[in-house]
């Protein structure tokens, strides 16, 4: 798999996978219309998770400014995907002082109790 392709740069949002740190960074505003428009982001997340099967992956949402409910759906689907793999450790990073991020991470942990939640 070509790791260099695991980047989506858009004027409103950026999703980047860093192979060295096994970290996916998300930034900007995600306000896309439904699952279809979110599919490239979901595919990137799944591809990043597949690169080193059992190596821990981190998902940094701390720089995400806005997320609509279809965007919430992408991250809940991804966490359920990882949970179902059973072998892949996952950390999700958010900011302690951003209320919706705290809430989102709490909901994600409800879906995957072993999820490592890091509020910074």
């Amino acid at each position, binding site marked *: 798999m070509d790791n260099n392709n695991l980047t989506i740069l858009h004027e409103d949002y950026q999703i980047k996978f860093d192979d060295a740190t096994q970290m996916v960074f998300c930034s900007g505003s995600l306000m896309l*219309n439904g*699952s279809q428009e979110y599919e490239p982001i979901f595919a990137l997340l799944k591809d990043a998770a597949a690169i080193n099967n059992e190596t821990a992956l981190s998902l940094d949402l701390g720089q995400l400014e806005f997320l*609509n*409910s279809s965007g*919430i759906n992408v991250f*809940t689907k991804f966490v359920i995907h990882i949970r179902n793999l059973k072998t892949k450790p996952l950390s999700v990073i958010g900011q302690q002082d951003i*209320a919706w991020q705290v809430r989102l991470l709490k*909901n994600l942990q409800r879906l995957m109790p072993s999820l490592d939640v890091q509020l910074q």
Partner: protein
Amino acid sequence: MVETFGTFIEQPLEQMEYLLIGFSANSLPIQQRWKTNRLSADFISDYLRNFFTGIDAADSNQDFISIHSDNAVKYISNELLENAMKFHDDQKARQTRIGFYISGDHLIFLLQNMATLETTTHLRHFIERLLENNPYDLYIEQMEKNAIDESSTHSGLGLLSMICDYGAKLGWQLEHSDVEGTDYHISTMISLPLAVKN
């Protein structure tokens, strides 16, 4: 016939401070109109924020995101705008209206749109499930369902997130809009406490 469900405040809203946005859902292609959501949601959020100044946050309860927090008004406004576009009956000329009202201690969002019988039946089922179950259980259940059902285009999480994450109260009025009863005028109300009640 008008049917009312959930928490629906029937006092005349026009006596409150309000902001109304109207649009004809079929005047622009949805892809083009979607881009206006960000502008509209930002404007509504900035506009309403002025009315919050000096009001103590009602939400000392850590269970919910406070409506005073960054992006809370924007999130709910944007979800309503998205729903208005997704579920409006394009064959109808009647405008979709979204109103934002400040009642003193409550912030009220009211979406009024036309919908087909099919959309209304779907909404009716959603309301029945919501009134009979724990919303948070439904929220998690919907997330699990979406993870299995690859074909679903709408997440079904928007209204549930308003209840479960923001502590919003939801209500609906469904009204037949023509003699055949095949089209409906739907009012969706979302209310949130603004101030601490002593």
